[in-house]
């Protein structure tokens, strides 16, 4: 184990374990008021009238009319309003905010506000949507011919459902406008995203807006785009009332109106000729929800991964993201990747059954190799360790013996074992790092010879503060307590980019490493020194071109294989996960305990999406299960034996050889879980999650797979 991998005490653990850490709900400013948002109760309509209740002095309503700048929140496109300008496109869309000194009264007045609508036609089925947000595709070889000549074609539709982030700390921000300056602070992943959005909404100069990320109680992508919306809302509210305004959601509100993982309908066809897969045709449909928000990039990542880690002689991938009148779907750990990987992994299982091959061996057979052309006509520049990682897991899990033993079971309890092999492309998709983010990082050595890390990365639990400090301290040869890092504040730190896309360690960490090396060389004891480093695009990459959807979308990938073993009680339909193995190649592991924690947590989230996590919409487009008693996430009782291991590698362009880690465990878990169910029930399945009810229907012959 490399010495940097040795775990250290996490920087913020003491504060968190003792309850001293301050999250937004714990912060009270002088004279602060509370805000509660009145939200649309219809999925699509025009607001006809709004009737406010009588409110005593000190209470007011903040609406679109109070916005000093533009009524559009910049995310990728600028189509999401701050407060509705007249039309609403999903249940939960913000109409106005009631603001006042007493939290309970504010909530009461918000409830008593009456909004009347002229209803407009709704669409909840993405297949029937007439609004396409984005559409892309790519192909290679004569796939039509391959299908025409095929001995057999597997033609299936695979479905991956919504998933709710269910971070334990709900969304919340404070807006504080005074003396012509605005501060927005609270729970978020991307302070500079919020900064950019709020600046336009307020029509202010960038230097007059300051965004501070406080302790953030989990994000998983859910606090990537949404705080830009809420930040604009509290900013406008504070501007109107001239006092700080805090708005923290309750859980029902959070589940109702914040983003989810995109549901995906994925039709895959595989051509088989002489016992070989000769072509794949994938048609992907992502449900974007009511506004575009992040769908453009989510769809791109999904399509890039649509063929998994495999190499096929010919293929076509096509996909679109469309509008429905539901809450906009956005970033969720994996960012569009888990859906298509899930479909491709299931197709591999089904192909294996057709071809009479073992699913694990079939994966090895079709796995791409270093030097191969990638599906988007880029190149796999580095080693693809999947076959070795599959073997490693097969041995650890006793896969080959079990897969035989689990054939033709007849008893009440039946076991199954499933496998998946996936990757996660490291960092921003396409040319984003080079053209959009252009990360800047600063290292400040003070006269007392302590060194401060100045970056915009938010520690939402993934341990980035600890990791960054470790990288700098290791390069500089300083004890860790001489290196300082605090939560980012846009007035103090440069824009090193958002805390997304598993980019923090690999991209920003690299800047830290470079800056620290320079500082070490130029070190002048007792003097103030400031070192600035800028992102440098790796020159080995084949430039990404969105118009042709070709090139290298990522410099490198992190790799993962999973094996899951389940036991199904065929009387009750209940599935118990006995074991879950994960082998991960994340380059050098910067802190072993941190990364193990990430892999275990991410794997459990993905297993949750395999079996129990299901968002339930009713006919009017309302989410029915908007509480944690109805939207079920795994508890301590659900956790199987988790076995996390690493495949050693080093990525030359990452700090100490590290690459992306955070999202990786969320990509392949549900596919291996469903694979295990397929093995136990000896049938093909087509969706995630596959619930207890689904299992019962299957066992009772009321459904096929």
């Amino acid at each position, binding site marked *: 184990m490399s010495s940097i991998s040795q775990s250290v005490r*996490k920087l913020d653990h003491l504060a968190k374990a003792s*309850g001293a850490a*301050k999250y937004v709900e*714990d912060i009270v400013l002088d004279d602060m008021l509370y805000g509660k948002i009145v939200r649309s109760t219809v999925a699509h309509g025009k607001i006809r009238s709004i009737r406010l209740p009588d409110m005593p002095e000190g209470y007011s309503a903040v609406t679109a009319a109070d916005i000093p700048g533009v009524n559009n929140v910049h995310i990728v496109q600028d189509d999401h309003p701050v407060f509705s300008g007249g039309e609403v496109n999903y249940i939960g869309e913000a109409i106005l905010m009631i603001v006042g000194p007493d939290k309970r009264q504010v909530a009461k007045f918000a409830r008593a506000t009456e909004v009347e609508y002229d209803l407009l036609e709704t669409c909840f089925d993405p297949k029937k949507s007439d609004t396409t947000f984005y559409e892309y595709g790519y192909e290679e070889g004569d796939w039509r011919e391959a299908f025409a000549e095929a001995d057999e074609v597997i033609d299936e539709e695979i479905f991956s459902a919504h998933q709710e982030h269910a971070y334990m700390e709900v969304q919340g921000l404070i807006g504080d406008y005074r003396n012509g300056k605005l501060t927005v602070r609270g729970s978020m992943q991307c302070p500079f995203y919020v900064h950019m959005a709020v600046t336009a909404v307020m029509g202010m100069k960038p230097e007059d807006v300051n965004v501070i990320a406080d302790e953030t109680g989990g994000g998983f992508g859910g606090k990537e785009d949404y705080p830009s919306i809420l930040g604009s809302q509290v900013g406008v509210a504070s501007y109107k009332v001239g006092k700080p305004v805090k708005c923290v959601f309750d859980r029902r509100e959070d589940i109702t109106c914040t983003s989810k993982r995109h549901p995906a309908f994925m039709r895959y066809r595989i051509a088989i000729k002489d016992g070989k897969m000769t072509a794949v045709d994938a048609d992907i449909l992502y449900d974007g929800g009511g506004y575009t928000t992040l769908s453009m990039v989510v769809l791109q990542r999904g399509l890039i991964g649509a063929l998994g880690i495999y190499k096929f002689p010919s293929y076509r991938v096509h996909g679109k993201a469309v509008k429905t009148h539901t809450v906009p779907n956005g970033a969720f750990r994996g960012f569009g990747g888990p859906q298509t990987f899930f479909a491709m992994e299931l197709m591999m299982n089904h192909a294996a059954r057709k071809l009479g091959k073992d699913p694990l061996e079939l994966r090895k057979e079709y796995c791409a190799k270093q030097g191969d052309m990638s599906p988007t006509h880029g190149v796999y520049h580095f080693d693809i360790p999947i076959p070795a990682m599959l073997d490693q897991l097969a041995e650890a899990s006793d896969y080959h013996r079990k897969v035989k033993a689990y054939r033709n079971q007849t008893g009440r309890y039946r076991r199954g074992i499933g496998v998946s092999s996936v990757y996660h492309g490291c960092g921003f998709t396409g040319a984003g790092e080079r053209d959009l983010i252009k990360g800047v990082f600063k290292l400040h050595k003070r006269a007392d010879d302590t060194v401060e890390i100045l970056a915009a990365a938010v520690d939402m*639990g993934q341990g980035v503060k600890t990791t960054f400090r470790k990288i700098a301290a290791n390069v500089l040869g300083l004890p860790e*307590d001489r290196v300082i890092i605090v939560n980012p504040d846009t007035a103090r730190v440069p824009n090193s980019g958002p805390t997304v896309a598993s980019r923090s360690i690999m991209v920003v960490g690299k800047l830290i490493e470079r800056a620290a090396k320079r500082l070490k060389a130029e070190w002048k004891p007792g003097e103030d020194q400031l070192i600035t480093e800028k992102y440098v695009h790796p020159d080995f990459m084949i430039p990404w071109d969105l118009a042709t959807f070709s090139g290298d979308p990522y410099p490198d990938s992190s790799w993962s294989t999973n094996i899951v073993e389940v036991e199904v009680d065929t009387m009750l339909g209940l599935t118990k996960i006995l074991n879950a193995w994960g082998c991960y190649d994340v380059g050098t592991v910067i802190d072993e305990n941190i990364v193990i924690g990430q892999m275990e947590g991410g794997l459990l989230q993905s297993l949750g999406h395999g079996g129990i996590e299901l968002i339930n919409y009713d006919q009017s487009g309302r989410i029915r299960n908007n509480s944690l008693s109805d939207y079920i996430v795994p508890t*301590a009782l659900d956790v199987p034996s988790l076995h996390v291991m690493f495949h050693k590698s080093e990525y030359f362009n990452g700090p100490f050889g590290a690459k992306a880690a955070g999202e990786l465990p969320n990509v392949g878990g549900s596919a291996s879980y469903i694979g295990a169910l397929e093995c136990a029930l000896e049938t093909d399945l087509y969706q995630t999650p596959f619930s207890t009810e689904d299992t019962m229907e299957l066992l009772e012959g009321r459904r096929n797979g």
Partner: protein
Amino acid sequence: MSENIEVNFRLNGENVTIRTKANRRLLDVLRDDFHLTGTKEGCSIGECGACTVIVDRKAVTSCLMLIGSCEGRDVITIEGVSSPDRLNPVQRAILEHQAIQCGFCTPGFVMSATALLMENPNPTYEEIKVALSGNLCRCTGYKQIIDAIYDAAQQANRADPAEWDRNIIPDSGGRPLPWQPLNKPEVCELSGGNENEEQS
């Protein structure tokens, strides 16, 4: 509208009296009136465990308990089992096992585990899982947390039984951390240096 009533109870070892509406949640009274913000709100319906406190030696979700029913009770919050430089064995084990990510669930887990160990100093792995099943954590895979609690119990059992209860609440003692001495400033780190933050 309920009338103001007077409630006398023990809070973190001290006798306290509060005049308030009887139908307020214990959670709000702790956070808003006593400024004990270590107790968190994650769901407000008794599902997540982030608001767990110990009442009469049992783990209780404070979002479901009304202050009116606290008369004469003994309430302990996360602030009562530790101070920033003095942790109880459960917290120490959680630190050692790195069983914290975002930390929002952590106080609740500490309280549930502490209540468990007060009642059952020698729990099995399964008993720990059951005791923690009311606490949700979305970041970890629970394994590091369960391992930590198991470890805390094992360590404590090697200590003198007479000392055990005292060690759990409120004074820590016991074995030292494997880390560097704890330095205070990082405990209340808040960036931005806003002068308006309320200290509690």
